[in-house]
């Protein structure tokens, strides 16, 4: 299924884009999405951490994605 993948900060540099359609298997968990991203882009493993937000809310590893979700890669924040 297709999700809408957003990338910010260093994640944008790693992926080379800010926003893109991204194909994943149906009902993929966030844990599995993170694994898939880390396999595809090994630079993610060098980060202190990265979180995933779905439709603008942080979600934990067992959360399952749905078609057309807005999925954002959130590297360590540094606002303020």
């Amino acid at each position: 299924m297709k999700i809408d993948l957003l990338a910010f900060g260093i994640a944008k540099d790693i992926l080379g884009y800010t926003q893109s359609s991204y194909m994943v298997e149906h009902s993929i968990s966030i844990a599995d999405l993170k694994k898939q991203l880390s396999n595809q882009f090994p630079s993610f493993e060098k980060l202190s951490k990265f979180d995933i937000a779905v439709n603008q809310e942080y979600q934990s590893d067992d959360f399952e994605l749905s078609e057309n979700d807005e999925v954002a890669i959130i590297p360590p924040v540094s606002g303020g």
Partner: protein
Amino acid sequence: MINIKLTDQELSPSECEQLILDDQAGGHVVFIGTVRNHTSSKTVKYLDFEAYGPMAEKEMHKIAAAAKDRYDILHIVIHHRTGKLAIGEIPVIIAVSSAHRKAAFEACEFCIDTLKETVPIWKKEYFEDGEVWVAAHP
């Protein structure tokens, strides 16, 4: 009252202080963050703040609502700026008013501490010889 703003325009401490005024308030605590001219030993030329806008505003609102739940405060303002900022410019202002001052101090510190942990905003430091996304790597 909760007032949240994410903007690429200059922030104004006076504006934030006006927003939290209340005849019932006796204490007003304002935190003003500014861009420092160095990180560890390196000289910073300027910073660039990037935000996941809609989510950042939601998270800022959550922090303000949590502060109002936890502390006996009247009004709370959280303004954050994005884009390129020079040394001395203001990326963030948090202003809190309360009847008694202790609550305003605690709430203001809670807000800035939490903002730095949860709000999806990223800062890139530009040095003479390069640039780095702050906190990205261990």
